[in-house]
């Protein structure tokens, strides 16, 4: 009991350098990372420890004043007390970064690189395109589709003027 009381006066940070005595079992070194930590997170609004662990004289007197009626605290004092307990306000911790610019830049860069790779592939990897893509073949194909009357209501053949043998205007 006395040991823990003494420890809280020494300050949480200092524990890592001092030794935690537990009963008669000997000493156990407490590492920094194993202690409760302070962090600004939206989902954890009240962290386990205060932000400022070693209070200056002014802050100590402010903490004493806090034990009395809060109506006597001025606005600046209330803000000072807030800043003792917290590092960033919710507004500060939630504000966006400018990271999106880097993200978009990276996106464009990699899309561009991919484009170059695709172009190279088209030139050096793929073979020639089948004969069905030549214009002559395509003309015959279109003529056959019009003869069969593909989609005559709203689609392909609907756009062909069968009387004048031309595409509808």
């Amino acid at each position, binding site marked *: 009991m006395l040991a823990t009381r003494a420890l809280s006066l020494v300050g949480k940070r200092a524990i890592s350098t001092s030794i935690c005595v537990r009963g008669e079992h000997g000493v156990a070194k407490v590492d920094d990372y194993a202690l409760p930590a302070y962090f600004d997170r939206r989902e954890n609004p009240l962290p386990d420890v205060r932000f400022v662990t070693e209070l200056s004289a002014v802050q100590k007197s402010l903490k004493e004043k806090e034990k009395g009626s809060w109506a006597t605290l001025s606005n600046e004092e209330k803000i000072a007390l807030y800043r003792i307990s917290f590092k960033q306000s919710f507004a500060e911790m939630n504000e966006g970064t400018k990271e999106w610019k880097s993200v978009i830049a990276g996106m464009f860069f990699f899309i561009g690189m991919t484009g170059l790779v695709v172009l190279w592939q088209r030139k050096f990897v793929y073979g020639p395109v089948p004969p069905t893509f030549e214009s002559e073949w395509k003309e015959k194909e279109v003529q056959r589709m019009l*003869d069969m009357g593909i989609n005559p209501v709203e689609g392909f053949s609907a756009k062909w003027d069968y009387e004048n043998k031309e595409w509808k205007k």
Partner: protein
Amino acid sequence: MSLAKPAMRGLLGKRLRFHLPIAFALSLVAAAAFKYGVTGPRKQAYADFYKQYDTTKEFNNMRDAGVFESVRTTGE
């Protein structure tokens, strides 16, 4: 200081009461727009097309064009 206490409860209900009617209305509008803009005209187009569709004439046209495998062109 002396700010008003922010709303602590009923936030989801408030959001739903605001957004659900709007969502419902917009969905109805979308459905109506599609019905009167797309499916209506499409059905009408098909009806009009087949009203003056002469099957025999079209068949003969196709036959002359030579697209059939089991019907020979006229005059062969």
